């Protein structure tokens, strides 16, 4: 579903991604872990071109989205993204946050979108918050709304950029629970996270990124049970 070919990204001459080749299949749950500054968030943001790669290609559903002719706005509709800082629109109610994109982009009528918003809010456990503003919500609630907002466009893949890193510890669980449900329903997911237990339970494949490269990738059992890369062994000894 997503293929990257020798993907590279530099910021002001500093190479953050040093050539990443990845195939992410439909239905796969890929979890990316690694120390901060390893390039894992940059890699994720390159997948929907929030960061434009310096070199290499990204293919999504058979289309080279790094080519100039590609209508990236259309393709992004099929790639939901959840951010560390939630990035809800503070001037809109929860309901409007969810319905704005599908209605404006002509995917649904306002009535359909409103109905869908309530369904999605029910799914993330917040139907009573439809008319609240984001500031009235806790961090965990905000992130659940952000997930609902991304799902409203009916994406084929969901990208999560450290979705629980800005949350109070007691709110991490509620967000992870929704992500688990989503995974069980078969959503294709790429998750950058520090939650090792989530990686262990949900991932089909775990990637370890360090210094702009994928140093090791494996099933969670092998990844956590039998890590081979020395840097990964060191990393795991610190976080587990």
């Amino acid at each position, binding site marked *: 579903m997503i293929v990257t070919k020798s993907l590279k990204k530099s910021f002001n001459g500093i190479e953050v991604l040093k050539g990443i080749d990845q195939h992410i299949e439909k239905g796969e749950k890929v979890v990316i872990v690694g120390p901060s500054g390893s390039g894992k968030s940059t890699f994720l943001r390159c997948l929907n071109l929030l960061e434009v790669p310096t070199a290499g290609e990204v293919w999504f559903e058979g289309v080279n989205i790094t080519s100039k002719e590609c209508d990236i706005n259309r393709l*992004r509709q099929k*790639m939901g993204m959840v*951010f560390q800082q939630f*990035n*809800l629109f503070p001037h809109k109610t929860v309901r409007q946050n969810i319905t*704005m994109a599908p209605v404006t982009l002509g995917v649904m009528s306002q009535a359909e979108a409103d109905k869908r918003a309530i369904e999605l809010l029910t799914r993330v456990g917040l139907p009573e918050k439809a008319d609240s503003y984001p500031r009235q919500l806790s961090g965990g609630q905000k992130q659940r709304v952000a997930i609902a907002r991304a799902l409203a466009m009916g994406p084929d893949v969901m990208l999560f950029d450290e979705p629980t890193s800005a949350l109070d510890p007691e709110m991490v669980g509620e967000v992870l629970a929704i992500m688990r449900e989503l995974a069980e329903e078969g959503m294709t997911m790429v998750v950058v996270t520090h939650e090792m237990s989530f990686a262990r339970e949900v991932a089909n494949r775990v990637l370890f990124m360090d210094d702009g490269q994928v140093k090791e990738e494996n099933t969670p059992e092998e990844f956590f049970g039998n890590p081979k890369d020395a840097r990964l062994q060191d990393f795991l000894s610190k976080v587990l």
Partner: protein
Amino acid sequence: MIAAGSWGAAFTRAFITDHRYLAYLGGLKTTALISVFAIILGILIGLVVAVGKVSAKGNRKLWLIGVICNIYTTVIRGTPVMVQLLIIYNLIFTSRNTNEIVVGAVCFGINSGAYVAEIIRAGLESVDRGQMEAGRSLGFSYLQSMRLIIVPQAVKNILPALGNELITLIKETSVAGVIAVTDLTKAAQYVGSVTFDILTPLFIAALTYLVIVLILTRLLKALEGRMSRSDRY
């Protein structure tokens, strides 16, 4: 009693006698006209320059636009408005039948545009980067994200500063007298030259400016209150 009586007499002479209040009213009208047209022009110029600056930052091909906008704001903000007023009056509007009010409005508009540009630019840039990213990640184009997400949030930061700019502008137009415009300040000076009491008319003018500024400040507060609905807990 004597002091109060003489104050009353001075006020009567400066304001009532020979319908002198009409002079202040006429001056006030000119001040208002110049200020209103100048702020409208200033907002138009400021909007264009701010958008020019913001887009030049993200796109190397637009570097020339960025340079022009920067020269404009630097020169205007770095020189006194009185000097600008005299230069524009003498250099550009040399024809005899120019309307001084138009000259004043254009000059103060050009001047205000530089400050408004910085206000709008700062307002747009004050909106968190993540908002644009969230908009783009949902499939909105750059312009859609600007219009639906960034601008509505930026307005909340821009409007109060814009109101302050209008207040500053109204006070600054008091130098318009140098190009033979009879604004409120100049009108007060005229009255003073007729009654040989210079101070009282100036106090009346000062009080008028103060009242206008206080009213505008009030309106601005009310507007801010209405706009911060989504900020409530």
